[in-house]
């Protein structure tokens, strides 16, 4: 019979918080990258230029078809040797791998959102002589945001959890630090439970944010 010793969680508090900070850093960095890349890919997918459409479709097929772990391995071991990426530190490799992977999903979400806007809006904009770049930015995308919020947010929750995979390339974010602490203190139950509670708190905050945004962007009728 072995008793639980929850004090180990308190004693590890600083390290767990440092891990949580890196988790959040990876999350925010990769979310920004994924959103920008995803928007570009979605616009390419909807472009009249066939090679743009093919490129975006192939990107989505490949990145959605391979595990995020494999993308991270690529970002960590291979991307550094690519031209212009010599500065890639392990943490930035993590941001790059997670972001490039999530971009494929964000692209599909943004594309679906744009396609959900009534085509009459395009026609009306064109009838008013607005250029495509202008009406996409001012008319179509603002309206599509409402449609995207739920899927964008639930995908972002998946991304937050996916940051844990960065432990596979040696980053000591929350999951990594928890594994190290568990190995050194022999208190896996207490520490993994603590990590689970931190993740649950973060994901629950995102769920609440999603509900807030859905209400905020709801049509006022």
């Amino acid at each position, binding site marked *: 019979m072995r008793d639980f010793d929850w004090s180990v969680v308190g004693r590890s508090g600083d390290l767990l918080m440092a891990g949580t900070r890196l988790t959040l850093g990876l999350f925010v960095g990769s979310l920004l990258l994924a959103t920008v890349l995803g928007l570009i890919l979605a616009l390419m997918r909807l472009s009249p230029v066939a090679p743009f459409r093919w490129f975006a479709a192939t990107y989505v097929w490949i990145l959605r*078809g391979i595990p995020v*772990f494999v993308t991270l391995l690529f970002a960590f071991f291979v991307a550094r040797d690519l031209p212009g990426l010599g500065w890639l530190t392990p943490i930035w490799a993590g941001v790059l791998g997670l972001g490039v992977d999530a971009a494929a999903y964000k692209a599909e979400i943004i594309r679906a959102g744009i396609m959900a806007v009534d085509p009459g809006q395009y026609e009306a904009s064109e009838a008013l002589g607005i250029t495509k770049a202008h009406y996409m930015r001012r008319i179509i995308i603002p309206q599509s945001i409402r449609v995207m919020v739920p899927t964008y947010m639930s995908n972002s929750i998946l991304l937050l959890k996916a940051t844990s995979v960065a*432990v596979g390339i040696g980053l000591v974010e929350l999951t990594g630090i928890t594994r190290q602490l568990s190995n050194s203190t022999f208190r*896996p139950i207490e520490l*993994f439970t603590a990590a689970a509670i931190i993740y*649950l708190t973060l994901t629950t905050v995102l769920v609440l944010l999603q509900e807030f945004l859905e209400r905020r962007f709801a049509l006022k009728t």
Partner: protein
Amino acid sequence: MDWELVWDSVPAIWKGAKFTITLTAWSLLFGTAGALALALMRLSHVKALRWFAAGFGWLFRGIPLLILLFFAFFALPDLRVGPIDGVLLEPFQAAVLALSFWTAAYQAEVIRSGIIAVDPGQAEASEALGMTKAHYMRRIIIPQGIRIMVPPYIGNSMTLLKQTSLTTLVTVPEMTLLTQRLFSNDFQFRERIAALAILYLALTTVFIIAQQVMERAFRLKV
């Protein structure tokens, strides 16, 4: 890129596909059974069952799969609660356990929304004909719900297949672990990882094709 080395890596990495595929199959089997139970609990009249299923979903969808894997592998051997006195699992067993819980939580949502999407008139008509709930769920509602469930169910199953790559970190010798072994010997990162990506892409593309075939098979014939 040395394409010859990429193709030479394929057979060695493919040996791990045995685990990738069996992990997916077992977790899908246990996970789907669990998901069906959870979905029915979520739709039950009994409040305690509804709460349990909702809590299960919140918990297992709120925690990264990797934490579940580490818990199953590192923490269960230490667990001593009542009659349970330390559960030491083989890496493969720990992986199936964690992946099954994860699958159950996600597929439960798919099954639940499929059932909800069936016209309530079908349940009412079944009751008017004097069928018991267990009977009409099994014979009327679920068969119709399956059509709605197919695309997200297969999508989740494809995600599951990709997630088996994480079992590398609890030392299951599947494709990703074998790849890491290869490139830590010869430092041919680019070619080895490219070969791994091609194999995953081939396996997940099978899922995409299966999805299209099943969607056609379950389409309403009018």
